């Protein structure tokens, strides 16, 4: 755990920069997750202290929102849309295909309920940066193949 102090420094800096915002909790959690990929448990007491909240309150917020992660994700996070407009064009089959394809993989699969690409589903988001539309199982495999060879 030699990188622990670095993580703690990051958390400390984020909390210090944001704690005076009105309603600072979500902005702080977002910045921690954006920086570290997840919200380490050691951030909870620090945030609680800075915002004058109980640890239970901070923990409650982290667990309430689907977006926040308490454990580090895999090398990449793939979000497959599971909402109605994508269901209408094979989204469920794609989600099931993705589940099987990524079993035992070091890539993380998460459901998402709409990416706003509903006229060109099924939709897929990779790492909150890249979007893909009209994703077939074949296209999904090609994307995953590329992620697996290229770290």
């Amino acid at each position: 755990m030699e990188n622990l102090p670095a993580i703690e420094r990051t958390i400390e800096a984020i909390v210090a920069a944001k704690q005076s915002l009105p309603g600072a909790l979500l902005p702080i959690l977002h910045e921690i997750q954006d920086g570290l990929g997840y919200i380490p448990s050691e951030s909870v007491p620090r945030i609680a202290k800075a915002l004058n909240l109980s640890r239970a309150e901070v923990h409650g917020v982290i667990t309430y929102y689907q977006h926040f992660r308490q454990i580090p994700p895999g090398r990449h996070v793939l979000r497959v849309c599971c909402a109605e407009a994508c269901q209408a064009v094979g989204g469920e089959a794609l989600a099931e295909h993705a589940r099987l394809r990524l079993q035992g993989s070091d890539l993380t699969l998460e459901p998402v309920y709409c990416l706003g690409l509903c006229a060109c589903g099924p939709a897929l988001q990779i790492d909150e940066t890249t979007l893909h539309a009209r994703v077939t199982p074949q296209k999904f495999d090609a994307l995953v193949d590329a992620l697996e060879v290229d770290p």
Partner: protein
Amino acid sequence: MSITIYVPADAAALALGADAVAAAITREAARRGMDIRLVRNGSRGMFWLEPLVEVATARGRMAYGPVAAGDVCGLFDADFAGGGVHPLLLGFTEDLSWLRQQRRLACRRIGVIDPRSLADYKAHGGGEGLRRSRSLAPAEIVSAVTASGLRGRGGAAFPTGIKWKTVLDTAASQKYIVCNADEGDSGTFSDRLLMEGDPFQLLEGMAIAGLAVGATQGYIYVRSEYPHAIEALNRAIEGARDWLGNGPGKFTIEVRKGAGSYVCGEETAMLESIEGRRGIVRAKPPLPAISGLFGQPTVINNVITFASVPDIFAQGADIYSGMGCNRSRGTLPFQLAGNIRFGGLVEVPFGLKLRDLLYDFGGGSRSGRPLRAVQVGGPLGAYLPESQFNTVLDYEAFAAIGAGLGHGGIVAFDDTVDMAKQARYAMKFCAIESCGKCTPCRIGSTRGVEVIDRIGAGQAGQIALLRELCDTMTHGSLCAMGSMTPYPVLSALNHFPEDFA
């Protein structure tokens, strides 16, 4: 003179390869020593044509699409930069019948302007509404909004002027303007298109609201699923600092990012979330207009609602009241989604028939099979069978058949859909997203999934139980999450009973 070429940077265009097309155009122009100016515009909302590349010519913008990176060399060979003929040439953008048959008001600059440029926004009529409202008294601003007949576009269709008047009439040293950009409904993307394609119009509408009620601070709550919209808004806020931040009605806007909770689109849950808590729905009263964000009087409106405001002042209050039907005034940006051939953004006055949207604009299903069911208004909206496709698109006609327009999302399904499965999904979605405050929604939705599973296993007697459960949810839930989940469930059951046999 350089040639202006437009390649959308809208999230859907990006998902279909727009960045690679833009890169190829830049590369190819450099290789040929051509001087081009590349504008990354929003999307016109014709997604079967994305990436849609446009070229400015003396006679108007010419459209080519859908363009793949591999087409770019051939486009240059065909002199597309001069509007040359090529198999992908669609004609003048303004002449495309899909656009010409619309009446775009709130969405008219999307895809047209450079969303990064305040100057371009102003060159296309932007800023005029704020300029004029700066010379009006707050009560005059509010009465113009009331007179326009504008109703909230987020789903509940509440008259905007009445809401603003309550905030104006509530004395407080601090008031807030909050924009609901949570856009959680499947099948909707008009807020996203507007935030990415014409963000200054949203900021302008919020600033006018600030003048109207005496608020100097605004928040835009954007769902975390929309990183591109968040980036576009932050850039626009930076670019608008001098414009909005000076003079009378000095106004500051900050973006707040949601965290993947559908119910945080409900306005009081959204306030809880901005304040830094779990998104649990608040009991009303007090109305947010009286005690909202941080306990202060707060205007909460949807993205399209705010974006509709500047034109009321730039063009007059009758711009909306002169259009539409019944008490549904103006236009609504409908969104055609799901299994549809020509999906995208259709802003038209209230009054068309659902069928017109599905077939004249939408071209029927994408799969080529018959359309069987259409869900209107997101996950809390009813499923309509073919026999209801003649329903007129206005709030009153939809209410009359036990449905709603919501935020204007229309999701089409072909005849392979299993409606019992869709009903089950509606219950499951409610179970996942319920904030947990009231029992009918929190527990009822989970029971609903189980009951539908038993029906699927052949226990037809459970259908009565499902109806009873829906009745309890409808009447015993605090907010529309629980009380409207029965809409998709019961409409599926009533119109498609054969799927529950």
